[in-house]
């Protein structure tokens, strides 16, 4: 579904991605692990068309995405739930959802999708007319997911949806990821929380210093020595 080859992105002289190649299969949850500063968020922003790569290719359902605007990429069925959520703080919850459907023209479909989001995220329904900037971190994360879903993506990119949230809220987020997966949405997830990610994802990549250093399924991930120590902690050995 998503095929990334030799992707390289720099901020001025700093190379954030140095030839990243990986792929995400349709119907799967693919998880990208890696420490801070590995280039995970840079990869996500490059995929969404926000950052322009130096070279490399990104194919989504066979079509090249490099050179396309963020708007064209959203229209093609790929949406990002960005790091730090980035909701529109001065717009209401409902307006945030409507903005998420900006590229769609079917007014009735949008309305029924908003209702569906309120059904799925009942806490957002209670806060419908509230400004998004006044929501709690967990609620903002829900809103960011709902806003991305409003574009009806076939592939949902999620950049560290659990960061900075209370354990209960993290569990809720991962429950939603599982739910979306079972409904047929493909997901490309960036996470630091490897334990939680192992419960939902089928395939894993590890990224370090701008390139991919491991690829495998959850079994292979648990076997790998380095990953054991770095991401899963010692308690799994005992």
């Amino acid at each position, binding site marked *: 579904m998503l095929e990334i080859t030799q992707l390289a992105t720099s*901020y001025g002289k700093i190379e954030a991605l140095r030839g990243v190649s990986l792929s995400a299969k349709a119907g799967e949850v693919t998880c990208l692990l890696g420490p801070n500063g590995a280039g995970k*968020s*840079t990869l996500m*922003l490059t995929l*969404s*068309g*926000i*950052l*322009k790569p130096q070279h490399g290719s990104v194919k989504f359902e066979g079509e090249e995405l490099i050179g396309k*605007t*963020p*708007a064209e990429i*959203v*229209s093609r069925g790929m*949406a*990002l739930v*960005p*790091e*730090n959520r*980035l*909701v*529109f*703080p*001065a*717009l209401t919850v409902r*307006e945030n959802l*409507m*903005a*998420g459907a*900006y*590229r769609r023209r079917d007014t009735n479909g949008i309305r029924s999708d908003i209702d569906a989001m309120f059904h799925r995220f009942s806490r957002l329904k209670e806060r419908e007319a509230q*400004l998004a*900037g*006044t929501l709690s971190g967990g609620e903002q994360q829900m809103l960011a997911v709902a*806003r*991305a879903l409003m*574009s009806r993506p076939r592939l949902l990119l999620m950049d560290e949806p659990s960061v900075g949230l209370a354990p209960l809220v993290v569990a809720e987020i991962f429950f939603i990821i599982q739910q979306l997966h079972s409904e047929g949405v493909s997901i490309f997830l960036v996470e630091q929380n490897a334990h939680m990610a192992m419960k939902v994802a089928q395939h894993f990549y590890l990224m370090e210093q701008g390139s991919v250093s491991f690829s495998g399924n959850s079994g292979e991930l648990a076997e790998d020595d380095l990953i054991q120590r770095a991401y899963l902690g010692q308690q799994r050995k005992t």
Partner: protein
Amino acid sequence: MLELLQLLVDGLLDGGVYALLGLGLSLTFGCLKRLNLAYGATAMLAAYIGVWCHLRYEASIAVVAIIIVVAATFIGWYVEQLCFSRSDDPGFQSAVGAQDRLFMTDNGEMVALASSFAIWMQLEQLAVNLLPRHLNPFPSMPIESSWMIGGIAIRQDRLLLTLLAAVISTGISLWLLHTRAGLSWRAASDHRTAAYLVGIPVVQLQTIGFILASALSGIASFAVLSLDGQVTPMFGMWVLFKGLVAAMLGGLGSMLGVLRGGLLLGVVESFSQSLLGAQGREFATYALLLLVLILPRHSDSGRRASWGIRI
């Protein structure tokens, strides 16, 4: 008592004019979060082009109106391309990170401010070269008469301008609140990166907003000048100062705020003029501005402290 009431009415009606001048400035700031110092000069050059066509080709007042609005639109486009066009990387905001941004000076802001100042001078000089005389006649539709209501005189020309300001600012507000395009405008002004992510063409919207604001400066300057019947090289400066004070009093970026700000400015001017004379009026105006800038800002909803475009 009647005198005080008359002062109040005069102040409110003058304030409507200031609001009309401030609308475009506030709209630009709301869209771009950049102050356009060339705003008054844009209005002035457009007006001068209109007057020039009137003197040279005896263009009728309706034609002059069209020429001024069209000229203001094109000048606005020129200013935008030169000073405000932001081809910056849309990922910049999120890539640099929220914390870093707090400590970084936004270079673009300084560049836009300084270059729009330079363009102000350039446009004003162009206008003066076009019509070197100090005082130029403007095709007028003089409405000299006033209504007398209970001993209070209401100048019809000022009332017309105040109504125009009210209609335009309410119209823009309703449009921002209730249309899809209005929503995308607010979203783009609220968070650039997020707006890109949902597929809003941020840069195009900002360019259109800027040009529309410049067209507004054309409408405002035609309305004001056609009632005054003359234009001088001081016009650009006057538009910028009065408009800026009105927009700042109301909270830059706010569409109904500029109406309130303009009316407040008009009333303060009117009372201080009568109590303290002409110099006292200027003093009071800037004291008021200082006060508003120093006092902690709490905006309409109490918690919406965004600098973006809003109602």
